């Protein structure tokens, strides 16, 4: 329903040439590139961290395991906003990070981290991490522990076991998680808008600006639709390549 409305609005307000114009706007193109790079980077970082986290989850015992689960679930539940603010407070000029680094004598001027692109990554990664950890964890939990025992009994050193036995079986979960994070990051404007500041625009923030300041519904609609189609296209391609859907509906 909302999609149909969006489409109607886009065509009605702009017409074909208007749509073309909106999509070739250099500001928009630049934003698309930035969004893709951002989403991809976040996905890759999440992939690495998520795999480590999931491995830690599986191998940890007792209270450590409970703590790791707790952190993951709480992080899932505490609203996006609160977490975003937490990061903002950490990174803002004269924030905790600045003060600490200056206190340690590492830097002298303020980092001014909040208004730069690198600032986007920690926040995004933090928010997206659970979406990566859970599918990888599912893959890991499905891995038969007797396979690890088998590998040990056959004299395999831990690294060989990890490389040849564990990693290949994590792949479906890792791919699903990476795509999910990538796709979510693509349309995810909240954190970048706060952390990246207005000078670093992503598609999400541009759409918001168009909508809020200019009230140019047509342009906002076109961009939203473009975003939806990009996301769907990526998903369909990924599904073809890796059978992600299977993994998700089965899990």
């Amino acid at each position, binding site marked *: 329903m909302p999609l149909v409305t969006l489409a109607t609005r886009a065509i009605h307000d702009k017409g074909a040439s208007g749509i073309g114009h909106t999509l070739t706007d250099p500001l928009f193109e630049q934003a698309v590139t930035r969004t893709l790079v951002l989403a991809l980077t976040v996905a890759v970082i999440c992939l690495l961290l998520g795999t480590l986290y999931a491995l830690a989850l599986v191998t940890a015992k007792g209270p450590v395991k409970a703590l790791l689960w707790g952190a993951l679930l709480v992080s899932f539940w505490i609203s996006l906003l609160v977490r975003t603010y937490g990061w903002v407070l950490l990174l803002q000029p004269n924030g905790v990070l600045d003060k600490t680094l200056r206190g340690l004598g590492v830097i002298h001027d303020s980092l001014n981290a909040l208004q730069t692109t690198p600032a986007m990554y920690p926040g995004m990664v933090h928010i997206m991490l659970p979406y990566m950890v859970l599918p990888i964890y599912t893959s890991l939990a499905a891995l*038969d522990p*007797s*396979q690890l*025992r*088998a*590998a*040990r*009994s*056959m*004299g*395999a*050193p831990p690294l*060989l076991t990890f490389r*040849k*036995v564990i990693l*290949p*079986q994590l792949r479906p979960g890792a791919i699903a998680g990476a795509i999910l994070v990538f796709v979510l990051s693509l349309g995810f404007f909240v954190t970048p808008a706060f952390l990246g500041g207005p000078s670093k625009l992503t598609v999400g923030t541009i759409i918001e600006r168009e909508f809020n300041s200019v009230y140019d519904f047509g342009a906002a609609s076109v961009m939203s639709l473009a975003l939806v189609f990009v996301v769907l296209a990526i998903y369909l391609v990924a599904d073809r390549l890796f059978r992600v859907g299977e993994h998700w509906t089965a899990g």
Partner: protein
Amino acid sequence: MSIKGDLQDVCVSLGGTPILHDVSLEIPAGSFLTLLGPSGSGKTTTLNVLAGFVSPQSGHVLFDGEPVDKLPPERRSTGIVFQDYALFPHLTVEQNVEFPLKARRVPRAERLERVNRMLELVQLPGTNGKRITTLSGGQRQRVAVARALVFEPRLLLLDEPLAALDKHLRESMQVELRGLQEQLGITTVAVTHDQAEALVMSDLVAIMRAGAVEQVGTPKEVYKRPRTRFVATFLGEANLLRVDDPLVAALGIGWTAQGGDAEVLLRPEDLRLERPEDAPDRPAFYVRRIEFHGARLRISVNPDIRSSTEDLTVSLEACTDAEAWQVGDRVALACDPRAAHVIDPENAAPPAMVSA
């Protein structure tokens, strides 16, 4: 290749719960020993102590007289076949069987040669490139065996290796597995809860209960001369009579004085039925129930037709004579007194835990 394995007074407890209690086992070089017991009796834990996955709180594990307590699993050189086979699903048959050789940095040419030789031995030649998921249960079992043997381990450990197969396949794999073991002469320890499998496959059977070994012996010994009541009832069907039961004397069974708590074991196949008029001095019984088991008839008899005391069970070959018996018939019970075996109640081992 073939080594002697020993467990000496091994005790294991997990989180305060005792799992194994003073388990001692001698596994002669080249023999096939089966650990048999109900679930929770500690047989898999015993296997894991041998493999090195479980470290005993006290006691020792010796391979050929040398203590291996300090060796981690990867340095003990034991080939293990897991109940679910634990094959690597993302690798081919060849890659699976090759894995232990890769772990040992065997050069590629030799690896291939040994994999092929092994696949021939388990009757799966030419399946190298097949994916594990396309194999049947029996084929997976063979791949698991090939993988466990390809690096010429000192000890082969089988954890319920046939439990996942159906009856017919299981029976033919029992013969095959035993044949392979004899051919290679590798010392083997298997775990099973299937009495028939244990009797058919093994040189020695160790019967476990509640974390302790109740008896070790050849299949014939443990079946015919069980040390404890538990062994007698766990292996096949058992008629147990107190030695002071008048029926024992009436059947002509002599016994050396052992106290009134001792029991006489009479296997159903050691009992015979006769017509009362042919054997007037035999104890008289009534037929209460006849079950047809194909090769055999299982007949429940009781001195009193409506008694609530436990029936004695007689197993007869299903020949024309035996099939003439009807429920309600009066019969005379006879037995070969030499087949009777007296169980001393003192033999019962102190268990590590109350059995579940």
